[in-house]
């Protein structure tokens, strides 16, 4: 579903009222998620897990993590990422486009997503 992404570029997506950028090299795919298995846990931003291309992938509600409401029930569009060997899915509203090919500058008003940190349960990088 996702065209090949230049690993050096930034993919910019909409999540609630925010625009969020992810390094292209960390994007696996954008796909629809229809089934979520909740896993009881302490972090309310973790929606549970889903099965994506044969792998069990945790889902992080970035909207909730950033204090911008909460993602509704599936189905929803999901940005699947992979960084440092860890998979993570983030529900999104849409793909807005791509930033500079060299990924050197985060556009104004865009939050850069630190995927490896988020997958480790630490959170998102601050807005740039």
């Amino acid at each position, binding site marked *: 579903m996702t065209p090949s992404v230049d690993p050096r570029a930034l993919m910019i997506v909409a999540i609630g009222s925010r625009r969020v950028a992810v390094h292209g090299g960390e994007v696996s795919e954008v796909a629809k998620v229809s089934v979520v298995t909740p896993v009881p846990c302490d972090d309310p931003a973790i929606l549970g897990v889903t*099965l994506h291309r044969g792998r069990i992938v*945790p889902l992080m509600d970035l909207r909730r993590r950033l204090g911008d409401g909460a993602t509704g029930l599936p189905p929803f569009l999901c940005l699947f990422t992979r960084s440092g060997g860890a998979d993570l899915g983030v529900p999104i509203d849409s793909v807005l486009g791509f930033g500079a090919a060299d990924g050197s500058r985060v556009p104004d008003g865009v939050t850069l997503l630190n995927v490896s940190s988020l997958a480790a*349960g630490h959170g998102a990088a601050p807005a740039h």
Partner: protein
Amino acid sequence: MPSSRGRGESERPVGSGRSVVLFTVAGVEYAIDAGRVRHLVPAGRETGRSVVFEGANYPPVDLRALFRLPAAPRTGRALLVDDGAGRTAALMVDAAGTLARLEERAVTPLPVVFRGRERRRFEALTLLDDRVVVVVSPRGLLADAAPTRVAV
């Protein structure tokens, strides 16, 4: 369903093919090592503060409460388990009783994004017929459950 077995079995490492008992709570499917399950009884057998079965006491554990899920009528089953280290419990579940075999290749360690008490309670996730099943850690689950046991 296993009805009895010896005590003192250690928990096997994640991924070594093994038999599990499946149960559900609030629509989510869980697996527990079959070696840790002693009996399956209807809910409502509590006497005082325990389920007493064949002379052994099993303190009730409301998994919905432990997992902070909405309460539901207690019309399910009680899974009588031990943790292999002397602790016992009657896990209040919605349904249980199916035996399954976990294959090593289908077992995934709990992703690192899970950093809270769930790391003690659950040891892995697995796939059974394309369904995601949460594999519980009896020792961690029962240790965590002690303060939230059901008042009867």
